[in-house]
């Protein structure tokens, strides 16, 4: 797109986020998110359809499926959610509670992007059934800020450039938080061990370790 003022009249107005050809990057991202939500919803309704089509009187019917509400304690708030038996915590957090800070990475309990705390211990929420978290405290990265103030670990990750592309950052922060809760003055080796279940495709490990170490000093 030309930035020459004389041609501007014949051009569509420049998109807000800075000069990409239309459709703008923002629109593409919105479209992708919408598409994912539609896909997720379609999947959930498809289950209900299947359940209602089931003629086995002993099988759970629509009512049981739909009323399959669980009471979850997420970031200190009580949330009631309809949850399928096979639904995983990362799915519930992202697609039902809108807590998209928790990421799906590998979806195979290997990369750690989905790390959240259940009763203070880090687990892979991509491989943890939501119903197993009933009665326990779930903490996601959204639960770290208090009264508009970021958690010292979050500040530290910003300060020390702990996030490069930052896709792994929420998981890294949750693993780091779990470490600092048990050990407020960890050694570099202990930090490496605590973050060993979190992969960073950017290879930004040095700064991630640095971020946790400097957060430990500031806590």
């Amino acid at each position, binding site marked *: 797109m030309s930035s020459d003022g004389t041609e501007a009249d014949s051009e569509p107005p420049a998109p807000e986020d800075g000069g990409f050809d239309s459709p703008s990057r923002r629109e593409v991202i919105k479209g992708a998110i919408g598409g994912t939500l539609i896909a997720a919803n379609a*999947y959930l309704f498809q289950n209900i359809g299947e359940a209602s089509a089931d003629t086995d009187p002993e099988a759970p019917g629509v009512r049981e499926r739909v009323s399959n509400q669980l009471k979850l304690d997420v970031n200190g708030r009580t949330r009631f959610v309809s949850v399928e038996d096979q639904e*995983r915590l990362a799915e519930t957090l992202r697609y039902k509670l809108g807590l998209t800070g928790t990421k799906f990475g590998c979806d195979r309990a290997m990369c750690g992007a989905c*790390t959240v705390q259940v009763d203070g211990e880090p687990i892979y929420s991509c491989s*943890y059934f939501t119903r*197993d978290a009933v009665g326990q405290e779930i903490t996601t990265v959204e639960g770290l800020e208090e009264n508009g103030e970021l958690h010292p670990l979050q500040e530290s990750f910003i300060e020390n450039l702990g996030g490069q592309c930052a896709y792994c950052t929420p998981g890294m922060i949750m693993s780091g938080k779990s470490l600092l809760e048990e050990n407020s003055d960890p050694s570099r080796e202990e930090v490496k061990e605590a973050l060993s279940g979190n992969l960073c495709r950017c290879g930004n490990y040095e700064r991630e370790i640095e971020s946790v170490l400097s957060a430990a000093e500031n806590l």
Partner: protein
Amino acid sequence: MQQDMIPPLTHVDATSVDDAVATLQEHGTDAATIAGNTDEINWMKNRMRTPEVLVDLKGIDEMRGIESTSDGGVRIGALTTLSNVVDSDAVNAGFSVIADAAGEIATPQIRNQGTIGGNITQDSRCWYYRNGFDCYRAGGNTCYAITGESRDHAVTDYSRCITAHPSDGAVALMALEAEVVIEGPRGTRREPLSDFFVGPEENITVMNDLAHEEILTHIEVPSTWSGASFYYEKVTDRESWDFPIVNIAAAIQTSGGSVSDVRIVSNGLAPTPKRLRNAESAITGQQITESNAASAAGTVLPNAAPQPDNRFKLGLAENLTERALLGAE
């Protein structure tokens, strides 16, 4: 980036071991058992296994926890998480090699979720088997690893299937002569871990003799090796976390400066945890000196038949044996 939703299923929380066994009997092969659920769930995501009923053992309290037994041993509930095994005072008091091994399993997240029972009953990690190839283990008629990539596979004791046993916990427990307690439709049975694991010549589709309706409830470690000298080491491709290429656990008892009894167990070499009996008998009765350790380690795998790309495991096994004998404390 959602990949595979798990198909609909019914999740049943077992309330007791008997309840779990009854549910498994009722649903037969439509049912699968889960506990820590760090592995089974990924088979389901891959649609490689599509159980209609999941029998969840997590709620069975009698299968959880670690206690010292009256005779000085330790009894570990199969549902105990690996993190709890690592932190257990009863384990660390006399059997620290179990905690050393459990501490090197996978990642902190998986150790918080995964159980010691699941660790020793885990399935093969062969990438062909896990990726849907119709190999011997999957009921087919060939082994893709023999003609393909076999770097992580077995070098000895295999038969058609060359998978290597991947468990870290199993070698430590087997070095201590642990027994497993199994409950099933015909009541309770117990057997030493060395009989529990099944090689492909006996049954090529399984890793152990646990039947579908049976449940591993406890692992019992006798007092025999309490306070002995221990060694554990795991060699992996990556420094952070991985399955072992080869791991080794050793328990050594000495009297009057020479070895009175020793057990060395290694994984990554055979389809079942491999006792290195040659090295054990070579060092028994000897003093542990550098030359004695080196000569005992020179004969660890007499019947090895490696593939071209895993021949390196023979040297690795010898070096690890030598280090275990010299480094046990």
